[in-house]
């Protein structure tokens, strides 16, 4: 065999690269299974999730009241609680037993108990209290009930203080109630919405998971079709590691460039979620994320022997991965072991970076650690992908040689 010069090798390599790229494109679009993961799932899942959480926050949590005070003041208090957006009083019960029964029958999620001396204490200038019992099946119920009651009590406290102080001017009243005023600002998610908090993370995760599933599926198919259950076919185009990895990677990247635009830009717009990121920064950030995800998926896919196994292996990881990102359970409270563990996955950095760029308007400067980490991951997973593919090539050649020897020996 004649020796190729370096230049010829490169030219041949690039030719093969595009051949493999075309081939991969063709299998992607011919394979219904891969299409499901590359197109249908990214298309549908974000819509379903956004639809589930579209109401953002909980309103009118049903609560029952046990009012032993029966006074004008207690009625005023309860009226104000009922008028708050978070709570709706569904029933006035005669005693606690009746109220508990309402809770058991799932007709209410909380009991507001006003003691008999509620109004008397106020009249005597003593401190008085309202007791709140919350069903803890959902923390949002608890939060709604607590918020409504706290703000009503603060509001009424202010009125009572003013009455007692006996000031002469309106300004004095204001100072009596709050010598220091305060303002709370909920930055980046002013409605405290659930969708605005969870959906961005889910969107990024969908990209990684569908890539894992799609690439796993196509690898499984390739192995099933191969005579020796090998990943790399015997073909004169498939004889260099770099050209296989880059060729396949490029075809996935092109599909996912489009998918990302839909998932990261169109979906938030459709559901009018927070979207204050600059498009150029977002594009720059998505680039290493996609690269890291693709090479990560290609490395992981080596474990896949059959077409469908990838689903059994990868689907259940979605829920833990979402938690590993530190979006719902704060990263600051995560045990060290899990924090280091989370660095394995591109989604951790992807989610954190995307949330900051998209929902908090950060620039690349602010997400520099994540950005750098994604490039490093892309590099590392590129190397591991090359490694495992190299191994696969050697493996498949070995099989062929074995077969050949067997054939000759006969």
């Amino acid at each position, binding site marked *: 065999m004649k020796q190729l010069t370096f230049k010829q090798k490169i030219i041949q390599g690039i030719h093969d690269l595009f051949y493999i790229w075309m081939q991969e494109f063709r299998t992607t679009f011919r394979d219904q299974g891969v299409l499901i993961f590359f197109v249908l799932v990214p298309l549908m899942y974000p819509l379903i999730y956004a639809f589930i959480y579209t109401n953002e926050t909980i309103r009118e949590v049903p609560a029952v009241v046990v009012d032993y005070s029966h006074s004008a003041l207690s009625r005023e208090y309860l009226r104000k609680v009922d008028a708050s957006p978070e709570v709706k009083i569904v029933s006035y019960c005669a005693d606690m037993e009746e109220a508990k029964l309402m809770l058991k029958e799932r007709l209410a999620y909380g009991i507001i108990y006003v003691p008999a001396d509620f109004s008397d204490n106020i009249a005597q200038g003593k401190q008085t209290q309202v007791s709140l019992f919350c069903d803890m099946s959902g923390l949002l119920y608890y939060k709604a009930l607590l918020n409504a009651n706290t703000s009503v009590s603060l509001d009424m406290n202010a009125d009572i203080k003013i009455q007692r102080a006996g000031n002469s001017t309106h300004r004095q009243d204001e100072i009596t109630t709050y010598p220091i005023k305060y303002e709370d600002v909920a930055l980046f998610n002013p409605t405290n919405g659930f969708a605005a908090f969870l959906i961005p993370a889910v969107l990024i995760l969908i990209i990684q998971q569908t890539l894992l599933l799609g690439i796993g599926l196509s690898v499984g198919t390739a192995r099933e079709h191969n005579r020796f259950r090998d990943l790399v076919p015997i073909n004169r185009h498939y004889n260099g590691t770099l050209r296989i990895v880059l060729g396949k990677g490029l075809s996935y990247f092109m599909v996912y460039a489009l998918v990302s635009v839909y998932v990261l830009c169109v979906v938030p717009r459709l559901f009018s979620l927070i979207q204050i990121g600059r498009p150029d920064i977002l594009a720059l950030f998505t680039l290493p994320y996609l690269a890291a995800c693709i090479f990560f998926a290609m490395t992981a896919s080596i474990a896949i022997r059959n077409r*469908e196994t990838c689903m059994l292996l990868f689907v259940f990881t979605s829920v833990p991965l979402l938690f590993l990102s530190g979006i719902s359970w704060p990263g600051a409270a995560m045990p060290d072991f899990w924090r280091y563990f989370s660095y394995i996955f591109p989604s951790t950095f992807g989610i954190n970076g995307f949330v900051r760029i998209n929902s908090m308007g950060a620039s690349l400067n602010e997400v520099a650690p994540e950005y750098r980490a994604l490039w490093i991951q892309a590099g590392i997973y590129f190397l591991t992908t090359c490694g495992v593919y190299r191994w696969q090539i050697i493996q498949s050649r070995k099989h062929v040689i074995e077969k050949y020897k067997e054939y000759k020996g006969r």
Partner: protein
Amino acid sequence: MVSRPLYLFCMVIAPLFCYVFFTTLMGSGLPVNMPIGVVDQDMTSTSRQLARNLDAFEQTAVVAHYPTVSEARTAMQSGEIYGFYYIPQGTTAKVQSQRQPTVSFYTNNTLLIAGSLLYKDMKMMSELASGAAARASLYAKGATEAQAMAFLQPIVIDTHPLNNPWLNYSVYLCNTFAPGVLMLLIFMITVYSIGVEIKDRTAREWLRMGNNSIYISLAGKLLPHTAVFFLMGILYNVYLYGFLHFPCNSGILPMLLATLCLVLASQGMGVLMIGTLPTLRLGLSFASLWGVLSFSMCGLSFPAMAMHPMLQGLANLFPLRHYFLIYVDQALNGYPMAYSWINYVALLIFMMLPFLIVHRLKGALIYYKYVP
């Protein structure tokens, strides 16, 4: 079943990993010492006292001081802090001269849990700061402590979070996530174990083993799965209620019954999935869709009552939703089982689902050809 490592992974290793993962991840129950910043432009002993007091809250840790608000915002955008407290210049002077200064606090609510918890602490701090200023002037006028407190806070809210007084997130989430992961894997394994017979064209052989009765064949295939999955179910019950001492006010037996119901219901659902879509790929897609959506649709994190009415109806088609409601009634609140009868009936219906589809499935097993 024993021969392939895939089964071992999906039936034992994956659920075990998830049990340990969720419980250790949220091991602290409630996040403590979450980082916040302080923008103190007042620079007086009062403002420093305020920052120190804020730091003393269990869930809040003041990790940095910033000279301006915009620097604090940048720190928030780069994820160093989850919120910050702003004390403008002249706050103390205004308090002393009764000119009502304004302080403010900012929370990052794209991280909902961290944001809400910090909001609570910083709001409390602000109330206290205001109260302390007023109390000083009341003491000066000769009020006793009781009188001062009664004046400052006439109505106090006394909150009782029933059966989870620590607001423990691990109790809140793990009780449903552990069975949720198990359910997802039951869906997948049930669909896979039947679908792979169709794919490998061994379905007829399998039927022959069961005397050509689909019932015997199905039972023969799925009962060993039931045993393994129920064992995994017992394991998480023992782990959560016995080892981690999560509230279990009903005793463990009703929870074991509920777990058994969930395992059987999920298997029933799995048979329905492969029966309606007898292609392995589509069956598994259906299983993944249903399984993953269960976590949202069960109404654990985002209550079902806040969803679109159509989704509220749909939520009943997810076994995990019923298990969640049973768990709330029994283990969390300790109500008698009669109060959740409707959910037990629902799980029973899920178990009956295979009967609907069994003839179609048998047809598929005999005649269906696998298309890759």
